[in-house]
């Protein structure tokens, strides 16, 4: 492509930056500009919590050294976009400055959900998504917070609870549902995480909904009231009831929007040469039967970016997600999932195998179809190999084959307790299967941790 062809990407999160990097790899000449008002350099959004807790400094969560961008001729433009004039192909910044593009990629990410709660804009009330949110949270929790309330039981909620716990601020965690993150996790897993939250002295209140946030005379939060009428005094409120595409600057234009920017499977919007990827893109049709029309995960953002880079480089690609995977860490408990494990299932069509360690912090679930073919797994408190399950699920392995070779799937460090042996035993008890249970090696018996 010619060197004056200009691709402009709005947003330097994982989707936008991956797109820029791969486009540069594929096309040496095209001019690439990435716009961000949030931060000059790309950083890992998922790691903001670690900066708050002193595990890292902000510079550590930037995956590339600062010279990287110039070396790869990816121009970084700082600024907030006010609106886009699609007819003249111009971006207008809040400062009034303009920037012309030939192709535009919208990767503006998300913003925290606020559901018109009374008092949601008081001082000391915030979500946690951006670098600015982190800075605000550091400022608001510096001193004088005797209790914090977190509203909404998802991944950001538990991260915020952990962050506040680091500052020794007591936390009340309001979750509307009957279990933590139970729109994603099956009941047992949700309970496992719930127990662990309480083990960390976080006051988890299930089936509790926020009614209103109450402020003092200076406009600062002083309490929240729940729907059941309970009033909880607090000086900080975290709103973590999910995120929504950050596309307000595109409203009232000819761009087709719903919750997100509407795109087809090539990330093409209704306007030629305009694309949307990452959290802010909304597919007309979900890209696969187990996917949602809006994918708001780090990994999907990365995949969107890489896929679109090919299209921008002239090799049109459709987004074809592979086997689903995800991961998280709930305080001390790591979680991974591969394939399809919904929170509930039809037991006529789906079988479930669940094993939990007696300590209640290590668990494994595998869903199978009625003929015993693996559909997906959840694992808590130990690590499983992505490659193994990607293959097993793609190739539709028999569950007993998966279980019999579980040692190969194990990704825990050396000398860790061989939970896979216990899982094999439990599976054999419940489902039978013609395989031999893995034996501990001599070294493992001698030095390894015990189950």
């Amino acid at each position, binding site marked *: 492509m010619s060197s004056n062809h200009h691709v402009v990407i709005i947003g330097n999160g*994982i989707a936008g930056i991956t797109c820029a990097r*791969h486009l540069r*790899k*594929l096309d040496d000449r095209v001019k690439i500009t990435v716009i961000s008002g949030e931060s000059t350099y790309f950083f*890992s959004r*998922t*790691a903001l919590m*670690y900066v708050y*807790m*002193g*595990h*890292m*400094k902000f510079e*550590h*969560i*930037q*995956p590339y*050294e600062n010279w990287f961008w110039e070396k790869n001729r990816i121009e970084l433009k700082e600024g907030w976009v006010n609106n886009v004039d699609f007819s003249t192909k111009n971006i207008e910044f809040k400062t009034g400055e303009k920037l012309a593009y030939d192709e535009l990629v919208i990767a503006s990410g998300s913003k925290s959900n606020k559901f018109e709660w009374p008092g949601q804009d008081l001082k000391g009330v915030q979500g946690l998504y951006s670098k600015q949110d982190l800075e605000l949270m550091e400022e608001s929790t510096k001193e004088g917070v005797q209790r914090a309330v977190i509203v909404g039981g998802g991944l950001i909620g538990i991260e915020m609870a952990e962050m506040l716990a*680091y500052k020794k601020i007591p936390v009340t965690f309001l979750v509307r549902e009957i279990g933590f993150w139970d729109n994603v996790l099956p009941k047992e897993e949700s309970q496992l995480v719930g127990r*662990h939250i309480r*083990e*960390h002295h976080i006051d988890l209140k299930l089936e509790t909904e926020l009614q209103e946030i109450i402020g003092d005379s200076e406009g600062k939060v002083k309490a929240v009231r729940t729907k059941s009428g309970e009033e909880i005094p607090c000086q900080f409120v975290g709103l973590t009831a999910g995120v929504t595409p950050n596309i307000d600057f595109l409203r009232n234009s000819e761009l087709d929007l719903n919750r997100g920017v509407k795109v087809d499977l090539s990330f093409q919007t209704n306007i030629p040469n305009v694309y949307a990827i990452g959290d802010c893109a909304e597919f007309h049709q979900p890209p696969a039967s187990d996917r949602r029309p809006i994918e708001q995960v*780090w*990994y999907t953002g*990365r*995949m969107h970016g*890489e*896929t679109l880079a*090919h299209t921008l480089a002239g090799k049109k*690609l*459709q*987004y*074809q*997600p*592979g*086997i*689903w*995977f995800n*991961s*998280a860490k709930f*305080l*001390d408990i*790591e979680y*991974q999932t591969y394939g399809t494990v919904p929170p509930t299932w039809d037991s006529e069509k789906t079988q479930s195998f669940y094993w939990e360690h007696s300590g209640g912090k290590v668990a494994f679930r595998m869903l199978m179809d009625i003929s015993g073919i693996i559909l997906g797994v959840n694992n808590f408190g130990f*690590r*499983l*190999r*992505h*490659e193994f399950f*990607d293959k097993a699920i793609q190739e539709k392995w028999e569950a007993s084959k998966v279980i019999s070779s579980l040692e190969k799937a194990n*990704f*825990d*460090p*050396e*000398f*860790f*307790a061989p939970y896979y042996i216990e899982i094999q035993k439990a599976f054999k008890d419940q489902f039978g299967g013609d395989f031999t249970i893995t034996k501990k090696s001599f070294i493992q018996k001698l*030095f*390894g*941790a015990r189950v």
Partner: protein
Amino acid sequence: MKMIQKTGLVLFLIGLGAFILIPFFGSYSIDEALVRANTKDIHQEKMAEILAPMYGETYSSNFAFLGAFGENFNSYNDKLKDQALWDQVIWDDYRFALAKAAVSSPVTENPWHFLFLSIGLAVLGGLLYNLPSHAGEPEGIKNNGIFHSSMKAKGWLGMLTGSFLILFYIVLYWYPAFMVNLVWMVNPISEMLSGNPASQWFLYGLIYTLAIIVMGIRMFRKYRGNKYQQLRTASVMFFQTAFAFLIPEILVLLNQPYFDFKNIWPLDYDFFYDYQIDTFLSSGGVGMFMLIWGILLIIIGVPVFTYFFGKRWYCSWVCGCGGLAETVGDPFRQLSDKSVKAWKYERVIIHSVLVLAVVMTAITIANYFSGFSFLGNVTNQLHSFYGFAIGSAFAGVVGTGFYPFMGNRVWCRFGCPLAAYLGIVQRFKSRFRITTNGGQCISCGNCSTYCEMGIDVRAYAQKGQNIVRSSCVGCGVCSAVCPRGVLKLENGPEDGRINELPIIIGNNSIKLNV
């Protein structure tokens, strides 16, 4: 629990304070008999004459005594040097031996009391501080507050600690005569172990070992629930205590050469020095065994073990320098520089030291077998240069003193010639690698931040690429701190170990990488 830890901290500080003050106790006086007893036969007459002005005087401090010694001794030596009478110059340094004999202090009277008051209290305090740490918390690694800590994030406390360590090493290597009281303090232990009086090296070995044990216990607490960390910490504690500290002393007690069976050339740079070879050859079967054992470790042990397990078998499981870095140094691991620039410096410097060590040793051996006709005493100057610049300044002063400035593996990363040798094997002929778990990396940076060797682990993990790096010591902390279960230290087939163009799985749109 907090109360116990606070008590521990106070006791540690009292012990440290006592350790700093003890060298200044007591008075120093010498007479002719004492000088003769502590100098070589060939220097006895001269030294007795040179130091005659000091007889009958009582010096109230180590500074006064060593000052007077310096005046008398230097005026004699400098005159000879001016006249270029090199063969009459006394090159031996008698300051430590004479100061040790000259001192009379409460410490020499009651060594046990002062040992307890200084090192004893510091160890007790350290244990009280470390044992209850993380009590009542669920298992899991907490790096909470590390970058908010003055000690661990280059604040004033870290600067102070680093400066103290640097000063300590300078005194230990070049001015040990100032710390004879401290050496007296550990004399009874040395007498019990080897039957010999203590030297400054015995004092250093004892402190070193105790530091590894106390801070090793901290590791057990910090990495609760991580068996790999527990085992490798136990391993370095064992090798330091048994192999580096006790066994050599016991060998001396049994009239055998002092020998650390786990130290390997070229880290053990004087292994092939003429006096070492002479010692081995004159010590019968045991000496011969030591010589052969040392050579076997170099030519078979290193390549074979490194082939199967990577250099970690030595660097983070056996080595004494590694042992200190992994225990005392663990709180500073995040301070290593991860930039590409630092990596470039690292490669140049560490391989230069390796070349220097190899060349020096080759010349030494050639000289030895030619009956010193090859180069005469030139090798001695080479040895003293290497001993000064690399053995003492780099490995000691910079290697440990810089913990709070540049992380805990400065020596291992930039200087250790054995690490360079192990690294070459690890990079080109080994089954060891760190694998990354498919597409699970979120680029958070914990792995890179906590890599003591300054490897940008994330750069590999986010590409789904195996980490095969000569410098990796296999401490396993990247894997331990990863929040998404992405990294695993593995030994496996060499096939596919290095994957230059990895594809991140999970996206079926991309079939081939570019």
